[in-house]
C-alpha cells in the first residue's frame, strides 16, 4: 500500500505546472493499472477528525491541510515484493514537488493475531 504524505504543496504550482503534473500522474496511474499492478486508489479530503479515548469520547477536528505528514491519498498495489513497490513509489511524478510516500506491506492476517500467538508460545515455553 502506498500512502501519500504531504501538505498542500500543489497550491504553490502555476496552472501550467499543475496541468503538466496531473497529466503525468494520470498516465502513471493508467500504466500501473493496465499492467495489473495498481487497484483504484483514492484521494482524501483535507478535513476530518481524530477519535480517541475510552468509547471514543474525544473527537477533535484534525488539521490535515498544513501538516507535511498528513495523508492525502492512497494506492493499493498488487505486486509481490517490497522492492517493486518501492520502485513504483519512486516513479511517482508528484515526488519532484515535495511530500513523501509511505510504502507498507498489507498484512496477511492481523498483527494482533500474530502477536497473540507469540505470547501464547512464550507462556507455553515458560510453563515447560
Amino acid at each position, binding site marked *: *500500500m502506498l500512502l501519500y504524505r504531504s501538505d498542500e504543496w500543489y497550491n504553490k504550482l502555476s496552472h501550467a505546472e499543475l496541468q503538466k503534473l496531473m497529466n503525468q500522474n494520470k498516465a502513471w496511474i493508467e500504466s500501473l493499472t493496465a499492467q495489473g499492478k495498481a487497484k483504484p486508489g483514492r484521494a482524501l*479530503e483535507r478535513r476530518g477528525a481524530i477519535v480517541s479515548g475510552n468509547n471514543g469520547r474525544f473527537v477533535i477536528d484534525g488539521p490535515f491541510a498544513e501538516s507535511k505528514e498528513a495523508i492525502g*491519498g492512497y494506492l493499493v498495489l498488487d505486486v509481490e515484493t517490497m522492492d517493486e513497490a518501492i520502485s513504483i513509489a519512486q516513479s511517482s511524478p508528484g515526488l519532484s514537488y515535495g511530500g513523501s510516500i509511505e510504502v*507498507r506491506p498489507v498484512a496477511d492476517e492481523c498483527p494482533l493475531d500474530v502477536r497473540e500467538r507469540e505470547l501464547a508460545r512464550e507462556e507455553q515455553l515458560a510453563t515447560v
Partner: protein
Amino acid sequence: MNTQNQNGYMLLFRGNDWLKNLSSEEKQKVTDQWMAWFRRLTNEGKAIAGNPLEREGKIVSGKNRVVSDGPFAESKEAIGGYFLLDVANFDDAVAIARECPGLPYGVQVEVRPVAAECPVASELKQKAQFANA
C-alpha cells in the same frame, strides 16, 4: 463541516505501540472484538474494504527519491490499518469510529472523507475558473 459525502469515508487506525502492554488474553479479546466489528460492518454494508498493515515499511521522499526506514513498530502516529466505509455522512463515520475496540488502549482513529476526485484536480478547476472570470 459539510456532513454529506457520497464517496464514503476512510478510517485510519493510528498507534502501534499499545500492543506490547497487553497480556495474551487481552490481546485475544481485542482481536476477536475487532474482527467481529469488521464482520458486522461488512454484513451491514457499511464497510467495503479494510486491511491491517505490517509493522514495517519504507518512506520514499523528495526529488531524489530517497528511501528510508520509517518508525512503524513503536510509533504512536504510525498507521496500523484502515477501513473504507460506505456511509453517507460524517456523523455516521464518527459513530463507527467510536466503536473501535482499540480506543480504550490508546488507539486513535482518523476519520477522513474520501474525495470525489483528486484535490489537485479541483484546485486546477478553480484556477481555470478564476482565469476565465
